[in-house]
């Protein structure tokens, strides 16, 4: 399949320290691509640079044929990329409905937006129950669902997800991964950063391993199972 997102030689730095030292990767349209690697390897930096929160020092980010490297976040949302950030980052003092409306900020057409809100509430019944509640009062799992739903409100072609299972109870983690699989089935392309490699490799079609700002390994989940070295080094941290 064609690459929806294609990143070439991406370098992003915080001052003098390069967090990404020339990363290249591709995300095939319709796929779940998973980004693995230890803490501090540059996974979040890669997502932030793709979403426009950080500006790259060099390299290209092509999305659906257009170079979007260095564009501001609100323009990148408009071109069809949405990021579900680590730790969810919902708007705590706004209601669930208002959080969803904020996710549709770049769109016009109130009728369609309300229809999308209704559809997402069907998908996430817990959010419907809490529709008028402030998002800060939701549980961690509910906030994660809200963060995903808010990102979907921009009708993204590509969904970037940063550690969606972080800090959630095992049952909730399973629910989150069920949602990821559902989104995939509905045709959303997903780039997933996940510490929980065991769960991530069950849903992904392709993975990249990032260490110290570089891609050190890439392949399909099956090949990783056979590679004892990588298994010991990187699945050792997986929470089963």
């Amino acid at each position, binding site marked *: 399949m064609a690459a929806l997102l294609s990143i070439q030689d991406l370098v992003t730095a915080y001052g003098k320290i390069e967090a990404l030292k020339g990363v290249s990767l591709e995300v095939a349209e319709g796929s779940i691509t998973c980004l693995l690697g230890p803490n501090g390897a540059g996974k979040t930096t890669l997502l932030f640079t793709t979403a426009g929160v950080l500006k790259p020092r060099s390299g290209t980010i092509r999305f659906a044929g257009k170079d979007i490297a260095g564009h501001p976040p*609100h323009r990148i949302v408009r071109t069809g990329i949405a990021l579900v950030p680590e730790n969810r*980052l*919902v708007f*705590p*003092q*706004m209601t669930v409905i208002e959080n969803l409306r*904020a996710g549709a*900020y770049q769109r016009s057409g109130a009728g369609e937006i309300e229809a999308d809100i209704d559809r997402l509430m069907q998908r996430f019944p817990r959010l419907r129950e809490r529709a008028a509640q402030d998002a800060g009062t939701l549980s961690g799992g509910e906030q994660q669902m809200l963060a995903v739903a808010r990102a979907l409100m*921009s009708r993204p072609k590509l969904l970037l997800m940063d550690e969606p299972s972080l800090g959630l109870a095992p049952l909730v983690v399973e629910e989150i991964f069920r949602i990821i699989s559902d989104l995939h089935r509905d045709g959303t392309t997903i780039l997933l950063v996940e510490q929980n490699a065991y769960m991530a490799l069950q849903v992904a079609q392709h993975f990249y391993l990032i260490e110290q700002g570089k891609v050190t390994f890439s392949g399909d989940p099956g090949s990783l199972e056979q590679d004892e070295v990588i298994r010991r080094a990187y699945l050792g941290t997986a929470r089963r």
Partner: protein
Amino acid sequence: MLDLAQNTLDGLALGASYSLLALGFTLIFGVLRRMNLSYGPAVLFGCYCATWTHLNFQAGLIALAVVTIAATVLAGAYVERLCFAPHRRGSAVAAMVASFALWMQIEEVAMLAMPRHIYPFPQLFEGAPLQFAGLSLPGDALVMLAATAAVCVLLHRLLYRSRFGLAVRAAIDNPLAASLAGIDLARTFVLVFALASAIGGLAGYLIVASHGQVTPMLGMWSTLKGLLAMMLGGLGSLPGAVLGGLALGLIEAHSQWFFGPQARDLVAYLLLFALLAARPAWMTRWTTIRSAS
């Protein structure tokens, strides 16, 4: 008893002007998390521009109000570009210090352009105050109360019923998440600054039009009263700023009656001191709720 009621009424009218000033000041602080010391000087600039227009063109009251608000927004935009846009992601202290530098600059420019410093300003009402049940209320005080109430209602509608309000509240709650949701933060902040300056300009106009004169002290006075009301209201909450302004007006009016005009400001500062000494958490109550969640 009648004196007490009259003082309370006077205090509320005075407090309404503080509330209006504090709304503009707090809007900037609440959204940008930056202290704009040049808020008052921008108001002074707006009022001097209106004075100049009055001296040269004999403009009417409404035209003067429009000139004051427009010139205050212009000065506010200048402050935003120089002090706040460059430090949006950087240091809050740098932005505050830069706004102090512009305070001096704006005040000097205004005073050089208006060399007599103290000018008469056309009054809203010249007639006798309204009388009812033994109480009296000057017409301009009534306008001040009505204007403050109207701004509160309009601001609430704007923040809770409009697309722009959604962006502002999202930016307050979590700036990073707001930009990820597709909200243009830079643009939102500029608009908030313009809105806050417009509210400050309206407050400044009503204040000088009820005093009947404009003095160079207005700049420092506006920043000070806006800051005091915001602190009394718990730093960063808009309803708190309105209540803080009203409380400050009531405190001043009553302490002037009981202890004389010299004690008026002193009592207000002492009460603020007591509040901060007894309840240090009061000041950070809004900021910590946000950062905790």
